[in-house]
């Protein structure tokens, strides 16, 4: 039964369109969701924000909201927008402060019964992986080495610093290195702020989770991804740390001051942007690529650290952790659509290339790109496979998580952190987070139902469900 409501009109099974567009909107505003998720989305200002995105110069097709969409600043979180280069704009706000925040899944060679008890492993991970605000890592790089990381990304830290193996690089989006990065476009302040944070998790909703594969929905795809029931996996969620935050800060300011010169009028200053072909636009793109490379190198350094801990704690020298894939969910990328190229902004959205894509690892062609959708803390995460249809439906994009439904403050008023900790532990989940208050902020009740979000993207034909991952150990950032 089709649902009608004030703001959105249903135009497909799980597709809605904003009824009243801004007068300056260039494209329709679409949301992929079901009735219940639409009701959650309508509660905050995300639709208004997505409506503003539709006014960006050079935007094409539609401004799109994912089922996990919620209110952000400028762009909503869970927003996707493509602009037409060279004169379409690039907007730092459409990527976010945590450039190339993303998720990497590691699949171990261990079965659940081989990792009992799990507590010593999680404890050792918490000792080995720096968490929290502004924490510097144990790795040390010279300024010249930081510049090489910014330009060369993952391949550099693998080849020159021994952080992982060369085959890891095959299984990272863009092989862990965006071409076009220019370290000279990253300010000295950004390098000062984040240059010593490589190999750190950060804070907020970042996490490292030890999981067990507890359901397989697609045997064929799971086999291609190397996943089996009862297998131990590790999911890493982090980004470019203070370096990326400062790159965004620097360029929002630059672009805000260049708006008049480019004759751009915006409904919200945090959407500050510039044509990709302009000096401001191309400088930001080069800096963003550099920050993205730093983020991939960060997840690579963490992978190296996690492997060391697993080998030590499993008491098995043969214990291996294979990179299944690494996906970005805060990024802008130049991608082919038909005969043209578009600049796709994904702010809290994941790329979802299908089986026909030549951009994904050869072994995954015919199956689709692995996509990881983390649940809220203590709930399951999902592995999906991208579908070719996503190109038309969603600019080759899908959701990035469950999506917040409640503010951090409201969660803390509702949830007692100590009780949540006991509840998680009673369910066999080992939790490492120094603060009960921080734990409460990330309580499952503060998030939408990840199963519903995942089911919606499957119904939309963007991606299909492959496996479910149940947490047994959580290290909160």
């Amino acid at each position: 039964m089709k649902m009608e409501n004030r703001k959105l009109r249903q135009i497909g099974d799980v597709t809605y369109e904003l009824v009243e567009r801004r007068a300056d909107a260039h494209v329709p505003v679409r949301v992929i969701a079901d009735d219940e998720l639409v009701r959650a989305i309508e509660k905050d200002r995300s639709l208004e924000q997505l409506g503003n995105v539709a006014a960006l110069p050079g935007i094409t097709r539609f401004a799109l909201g994912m089922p996990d969409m919620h209110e952000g600043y400028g762009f909503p979180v869970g927003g996707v927008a493509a602009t037409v280069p060279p004169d379409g704009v690039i907007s730092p706000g459409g990527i976010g402060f945590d450039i190339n925040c993303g998720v990497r899944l590691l699949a171990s060679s261990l079965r659940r019964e081989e990792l009992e008890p799990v507590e010593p492993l999680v404890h050792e991970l918490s000792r080995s992986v720096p968490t929290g605000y502004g924490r510097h890592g144990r790795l040390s790089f010279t300024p010249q080495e930081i510049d090489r990381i910014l330009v060369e990304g993952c391949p550099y830290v693998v080849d020159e610093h021994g952080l992982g193996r060369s085959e890891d690089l095959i299984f990272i989006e863009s092989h862990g290195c965006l071409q076009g990065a220019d370290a000279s476009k990253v300010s000295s302040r950004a390098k000062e702020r984040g240059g010593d944070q490589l190999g750190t998790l950060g804070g907020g909703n970042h996490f490292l989770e030890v999981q067990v594969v507890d359901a397989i929905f697609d045997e064929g795809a799971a086999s291609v991804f190397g996943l089996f029931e009862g297998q131990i996996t590790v999911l890493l969620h982090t980004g470019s740390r203070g370096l990326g935050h400062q790159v965004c800060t620097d360029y929002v300011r630059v672009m805000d001051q260049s708006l008049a010169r480019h004759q751009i009028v915006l409904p919200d200053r945090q959407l500050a942007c510039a044509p990709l072909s302009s000096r401001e636009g191309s400088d930001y793109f080069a800096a963003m690529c550099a920050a993205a490379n730093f983020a991939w190198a960060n997840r690579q350094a963490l992978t190296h650290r996690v492997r060391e801990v697993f080998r030590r704690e499993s008491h098995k020298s043969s214990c291996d952790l294979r990179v299944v894939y690494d996906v970005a969910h805060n990024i802008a990328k130049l991608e082919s659509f038909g005969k043209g190229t578009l600049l796709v902004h994904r702010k809290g959205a994941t790329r979802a290339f299908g089986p026909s894509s030549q951009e994904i690892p050869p072994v995954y062609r015919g199956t689709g790109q692995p996509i990881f959708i983390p649940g809220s803390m203590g709930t399951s995460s999902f592995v999906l496979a991208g579908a070719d249809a996503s190109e038309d439906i969603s600019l080759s994009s899908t959701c990035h998580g469950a999506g917040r439904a409640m503010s951090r403050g409201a969660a803390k008023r509702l949830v007692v952190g100590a009780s949540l900790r006991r509840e998680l532990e009673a369910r066999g989940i080992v939790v490492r987070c120094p603060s009960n208050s921080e734990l409460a902020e990330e309580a499952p009740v503060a998030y939408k139902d990840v199963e519903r979000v995942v089911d919606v993207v499957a119904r939309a034909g963007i991606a299909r469900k492959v496996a479910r991952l149940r947490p047994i150990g959580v290290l909160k950032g």
Partner: protein
Amino acid sequence: VPSHTFEDHVGEVRMRVDAPTLASLFEEAARGIADLMLETTSAVDAAGVEAVELHAPDKESLLVDWLNEIIFLSETRRHVYTGARVQRISDTELDAVVHGVVPENLRTPVKAATLHALKIEETPQGYSASVTLDV
């Protein structure tokens, strides 16, 4: 009396600041950032003083630059700036000093202050602003 409150925002933190003067509005906004950073920890020692000098095209940009400067200093010096004194301010320029403390354990990340829907309004009581912070 200057005041700040944290309003509900699904994804981030929105900070509402009210103050009798523009200078005290900026000082109070800095205290708000310090409160967020010290939410789950406490100060163990006094730290140094930093001078801040900023130029911006308008007072909204100036406020965002001010908060982002404090966030930058906090992350690079690993201090929380609990005291701020604005020595000179106009709509486009600011000279100030900030006093830091060493936190026991700095965990709450404030990535940046944003221009999102930001307007510094003059009210019968002085000035008012709501700043969205990426946390």
